[in-house]
């Protein structure tokens, strides 16, 4: 098995996009590869952060095969020599280990992310359907997925949220449970609040209200993420029905203080209110956290929680590597026994 690929570490986005393969063409590309002399089976993996080709060749040491493989993905006006430096190549056990690391999220930009597992599965399914994987590749990939699952279940590599948006979503879920039916108010149409609102909406938040000093900008944001734009002088009234507030305006003073919330408590029937303050300087007075049903998190706290999760994941890397190492050893032992 040979792995030939490039990723976010070895190639800039321009090079990566040059080699990107749309999901519906993964199988077709596999067929093109297996038509090369010496390539019997293959798997093409293409995500926004990597493009990797796993193939089974008769002559593992043949450099020419690698160049031919690269050529299959290269746009017509480029030569292999121009891009060769961005590629890495792993052979045999190293290639298997690399794939296990990829599947487990150890090689991802966000350490321990789980999306890659599904992406590799999709790539495998496409290759399988195109008929470019046979017994050897199938067996190897099944083993890789089982090692990936073991890493996930036996380590903390996927635990915790590692970005501000995902920490906010996780906290919201700890407070409200499922977010369907939750109402979100965005104060200020900044990029960070957009990202957080999108993350909350993706997890089921029902309605998003956007209030911005410039009403047009609020409408613009609403057109992008859905919801309702409200005038900036009307947002305080809407607080009665809101569950989550994301504040990110450039106002130099507090917009939400205990005085804003205390008169609304009984009207809100003391429902929980989650306040996310991602503005600098702060838009929400820290004292509001003293109100029983109010949970205030600012950007520093959210970043700190994300950092902690990242550190926890980093500490798990050694354990994951060990699980992968053991899995691969076992695989080769079984192979030796099987082959007699």
């Amino acid at each position, binding site marked *: 098995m040979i792995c030939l690929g490039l990723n976010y570490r070895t190639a800039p986005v321009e090079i990566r996009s040059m080699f990107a393969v749309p999901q519906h063409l993964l199988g077709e590309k596999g067929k093109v590869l297996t038509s090369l002399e010496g390539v019997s089976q293959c798997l093409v993996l293409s995500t926004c952060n990597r493009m990797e080709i796993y193939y089974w060749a008769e002559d593992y040491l043949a450099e020419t095969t690698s160049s031919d493989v690269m050529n299959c993905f290269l746009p017509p006006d480029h030569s292999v020599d121009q891009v060769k430096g961005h590629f890495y190549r792993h052979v045999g056990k190293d290639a298997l280990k690399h794939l296990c690391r990829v599947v487990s999220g150890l090689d991802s930009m966000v350490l321990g992310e789980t999306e890659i597992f599904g992406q590799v599965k999709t790539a495998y399914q496409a290759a399988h359907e195109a008929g470019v994987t046979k017994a050897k590749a199938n067996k190897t990939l099944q083993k890789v997925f089982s090692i990936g*699952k073991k890493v*996930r*279940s036996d380590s903390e590599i996927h*635990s*915790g*949220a590692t970005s501000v948006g995902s*920490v906010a979503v*996780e*906290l919201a*879920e*700890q*407070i*409200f*449970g499922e977010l369907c039916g939750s109402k979100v108010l965005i104060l200020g149409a900044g990029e960070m609040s957009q990202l957080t609102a999108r993350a909350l909406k993706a997890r089921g938040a029902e309605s998003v209200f956007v209030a911005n000093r410039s009403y047009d900008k609020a409408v613009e944001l609403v057109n992008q993420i859905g919801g309702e734009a409200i005038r900036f002088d009307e947002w305080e009234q809407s607080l009665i029905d809101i569950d989550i507030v994301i504040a990110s305006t450039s106002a130099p003073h507090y917009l939400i203080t205990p005085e804003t919330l205390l008169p609304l*408590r*009984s009207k*809100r*029937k*003391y*429902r*929980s209110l989650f306040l996310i303050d991602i503005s600098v300087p702060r838009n929400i007075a820290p004292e509001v*956290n003293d109100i*029983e*049903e109010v*949970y205030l*998190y600012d950007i520093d*706290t959210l970043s*700190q*929680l994300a950092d*902690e999760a990242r550190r926890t994941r980093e500490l798990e890397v050694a354990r994951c590597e060990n699980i992968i190492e053991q899995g691969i050893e076992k695989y080769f032992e079984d192979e030796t026994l099987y082959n007699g």
Partner: protein
Amino acid sequence: MSSLWWIFASLVYALCVMTLGWQCRQAQKPFVHGFIWIVFLFVFQSIALLLKGLEIEACPVRGEANVLFYFSWGLTLFYIILGRPYRASALGLFTLPGVCLLTIASLGLTFTSTETPYVDNLLLTIHVAIAMLGYAALILSGVLGLIFLAENKKLKKHLLPSKENGLPPIRILHKSMKRLMLVSFILIIISEIFGVVAHLDVPTIKLWIVGILNGAFAVIWFWQIVWGLSGKKWAISSVILALFSLSIFLVNK
């Protein structure tokens, strides 16, 4: 088949379902039809209680062994009626181990202790049975209150509670506490009505305890309806009332 056979059967069944559920959890697979499995357990337990009642021609909730089995039946009942968030939480997860422990303890007492004489008074036994369920609901509400306070403290202090701890979110805990306290209030009132109809000779101290409990229930609900109550205040009230309700078991007739 005797009630004892059904108690054994329910224990074996609960152990099997628990093992199955545990295996699914270990393999990170969903416990398919878990709810249906537990509904069957409830049927087993109900048959056991019914047969017990028929055997002794009285309400089966009498004597420590039967009371423990009755509590295990109550746990299953709460699992069924308290909704999906409760079932998905750690509390739901501990239902089967709880049922198994209570049933084992109940069987142990059946074989080791002398049998409590049964009272041939239907109204009295119905009063006791409903009251027990009411107090069980209140104690469960107190447990939820404690969990709420711990989770709330973590969130207030900006410590991200672990998703893996399996505890329900704050809003679900708040709703479940309210629901359990209402169930408890209604059951205790019904049990009192049966007590009054049965002309029970109740010690004054018990009357005081029940009176204070009912008064507290009424005040809490009135407050909730008129002004509203925060989750933290509900949690504190639940814990205090649950602890206070235990005093009723300390009073000997």
